[in-house]
């Protein structure tokens, strides 16, 4: 399955969001997620199933003014 992760196409075997995050290398990281522009809280990730062509945003703390 191909999904757009932070603007780049990535291949994932997992359809469940928590497993996909692990597979993409975000295991254990402090991140927040949005799927197709909608915020997905950490508690909702287990109930979130990915589909081909989905747009996933994975954001983390960063410097800001």
């Amino acid at each position, binding site marked *: 399955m191909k999904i757009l992760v*932070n*603007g780049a196409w990535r291949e994932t075997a997992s359809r469940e969001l928590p497993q996909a995050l692990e597979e*993409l*290398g*975000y295991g254990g*990281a*402090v*991140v*927040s*997620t*949005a799927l197709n*522009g*909608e*915020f997905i*809280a*950490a508690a909702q990730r287990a109930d979130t199933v990915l589909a081909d062509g989905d747009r996933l*945003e*994975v*954001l*983390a*703390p*960063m*410097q*800001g*003014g």
Partner: protein
Amino acid sequence: MLRLYQTTVHSRLMLGSARYPSPQVLADAVKAARAEIVTVSLRRESAGERAGQAFWSLIRELGVRVLPNTAGCHSVKEAVTTAHMAREVFGTTWIKLEVIGEDDTLQPDVFGLVDAARTLCAEGFEVFPYTTEDLVVAERLLAAGCGLLMPWGAPIGSGRGLNNLFGLKALRAHFPEVPLIIDAGLGVPSHAAQALELGFDAVLLNTAIAQAGDPVRMAAAFAQAIEAGLAARQAGPIEPRDLAVPSTPVIGTAFRG
């Protein structure tokens, strides 16, 4: 002491965390500024670099209160979604709400700002709206549930100081009880002193310190200026006049009459 929603802080200087030469300089500047509040952001995380994880560790070690922003958002939807994501990651209901309307000046889209503020305040966020000095927009933001306002001094990163003194003074006079924080556009410590002298409650700075030749020294200089500006405000400045008034008593002046 300054009350921001349910929180009381001592420092009138809030710092942005971007554009410093190194994480260590940022940490030293925060300490030199005696800042209690530091703004942070959210960006796409690279699974390989995990830069965000290292940054978050640094900020937590500083022991400051974080104010997440929605910088870079150009629509209400983006800003509201970013606020939700920030609340989860940073564990705070504070949000510095930015909805940018124009790229050359980074001027806020005040219409989108009011809409987003209404939504977020209703959801329990404590919104710090980055706005202009416009009185009507200020009224709308307060009606939307904002408990403070963050008017710009000048466009972000421009270092121009307080661009519209008349408008800023009018804003201060119009809302004497509302915490007002000058956010953006200051360049040198005298700009910050002036903001406090005019009765603004605090300033939020980033570029003026981060891009200074010696950011840590500049942070200390801003802290001194803000202390001076606050003391001057509390001491009651004189009103400017158009004509001279002799400061030396004229009674008993020699060679007269």
